[in-house]
């Protein structure tokens, strides 16, 4: 079924009885060419691009829960390409370009909204850093505008510009950045993959990875064993457990990141605004809810919920920055399990086991990467070669110390990112 304006009109006039399920619910077959472990954003986009760009369709995505139940449906939906270091910047630039054609490509409304992302700065030194980052973004071919205090005040009159601790000096404005509806991204890729013949198998937990003579031969699941020549591990926060089934230990620690949403309000925040110094960022959803978050809770966790100190910290930072939101009522908060890598950058690579591939280490920034990650990972799985925009995400960079991509300049060590 294709979506179109005409179709919406017709269904609207005839009681919406003609809509069909977006994807099939097939039984797993005994064997596939490629198995993808994890039906999050990255697993689904990998399957989609394997089918759409490489013509490979004898593929199953194995998801232990339901499509969209992981981080892909828990994030705060920011999409941007404002990275600084080689390795990251060409990759996120590639991903943003895919976002810009995504809705037509998928024939699906993912509500991608390029409303602009603004990173605030609060000192002369930070302004220099923002200018430098902006120049890197421009030389990568993306967009950046350095806004002074007065220009920013015209755009965002509601900020507290004169806080004693963090007076606002200006902001780095990335107009092509923005948000998208996260569930729709999962559903759109799921539907696109399914339409091209990929089997999406939900409620199917992988419990073992079969390896013989150094090559992968299939997996064990709660719905029986499935054979395959190639297996891709794309389990985000659960990557450590999945890789352990293949006898691997990963440079990954799983942490909890929380997010919050208020009751629906009239439109008041038109952009994504980030207040790095206060560990706070915010945007407003199309339904009117203020969607905001802060930093990690900072301890290893698989609970998918956090503790109160972080809640308090995020609320304090938010009200300091935007006193006007103080009266908004928070409706919900939740947490997601983040796959934190030592340098804060992802891993997209093959492993020492023939036919076994790894995609993880997305930290708190993997939503914007969903198109790019699936695209370059599909390229690696299909052709055996690294995609030109993803040559830096090697697994061995930690062991060798060569090619660390430490975007924040904090050091390559868990608990610093």
């Amino acid at each position: 079924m294709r979506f179109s304006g005409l179709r919406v009109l017709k269904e609207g006039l005839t009681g919406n009885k003609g809509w069909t399920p977006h994807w099939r619910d097939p039984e797993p077959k005994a064997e596939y060419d490629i198995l993808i472990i994890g039906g999050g954003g990255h697993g689904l986009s990998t399957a989609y691009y394997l089918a759409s760009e490489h013509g490979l369709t004898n593929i199953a995505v194995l998801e232990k829960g339901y499509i969209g139940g992981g981080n892909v449906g828990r994030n705060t939906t920011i999409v941007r390409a404002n990275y600084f270091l080689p390795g990251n910047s060409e990759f996120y630039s590639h991903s943003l370009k895919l976002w810009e054609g995504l809705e037509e490509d998928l024939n699906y409304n993912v509500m991608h909204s390029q409303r602009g992302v603004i990173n605030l700065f609060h000192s002369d030194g930070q302004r220099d850093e923002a200018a430098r980052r902006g120049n890197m973004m421009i030389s990568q071919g993306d967009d950046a505008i350095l806004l002074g205090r007065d220009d920013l005040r015209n755009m965002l009159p509601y900020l507290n510009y004169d806080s004693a601790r963090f007076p606002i000096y200006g902001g780095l404005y990335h107009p092509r950045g923005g948000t998208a509806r996260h569930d729709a991204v999962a559903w759109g890729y799921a539907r696109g993959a399914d339409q091209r013949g990929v089997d999406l198998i939900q409620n199917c937990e992988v419990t073992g990875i079969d390896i013989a003579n150094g090559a992968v031969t299939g997996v064990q699941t709660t719905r029986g064993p499935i054979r395959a020549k190639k297996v891709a591990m794309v389990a985000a926060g659960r990557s450590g457990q999945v890789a352990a089934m293949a006898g691997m230990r990963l440079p990954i620690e799983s942490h909890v990141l929380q997010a919050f949403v208020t009751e629906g309000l009239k439109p008041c925040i038109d952009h994504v605004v980030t207040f790095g110094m206060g560990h706070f960022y915010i945007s407003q959803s199309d339904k009117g809810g203020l969607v905001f978050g802060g930093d990690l809770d900072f301890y290893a966790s698989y609970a998918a919920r956090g503790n109160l100190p972080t809640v308090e910290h995020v609320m304090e930072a938010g009200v300091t920055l935007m006193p006007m939101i103080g009266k908004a009522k928070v409706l919900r908060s939740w947490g997601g399990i983040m796959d934190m890598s030592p340098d804060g950058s992802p891993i997209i690579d093959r492993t020492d086991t023939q036919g076994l591939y790894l995609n993880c280490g997305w930290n708190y920034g993997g939503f914007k990467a969903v198109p790019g990650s699936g695209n370059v990972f599909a390229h690696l799985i299909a052709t055996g070669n690294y995609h030109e925009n993803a040559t830096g995400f090697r697994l061995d960079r930690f062991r060798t110390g060569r090619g660390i991509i430490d975007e924040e300049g904090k050091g390559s060590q868990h608990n610093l990112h």
Partner: protein
Amino acid sequence: MRITCPHCGERDRREFYYRGAAVDLDRPAPDAGEKAWDSFVYLHDNPAGETRDLWYHEGGCGAWLVVTRNTVTHAVLKTELASQARS
């Protein structure tokens, strides 16, 4: 989350700095080789369930603690001084 410091008693989690997995107590010898050091610095068991990690009682007595915790429920099961856990 509250953590019981052997010196100071039960305290708010905010008084503590989190260091990470308690593997830090088993530092390899300087010449142990690349593999041992890679394993020590980067590769983690990252368990979903019971884990042991290092916390520093920054806002209290300044002791390093080994905390046995459940990463799925956030229950704190046991705390001991790192100096004792090590010996």
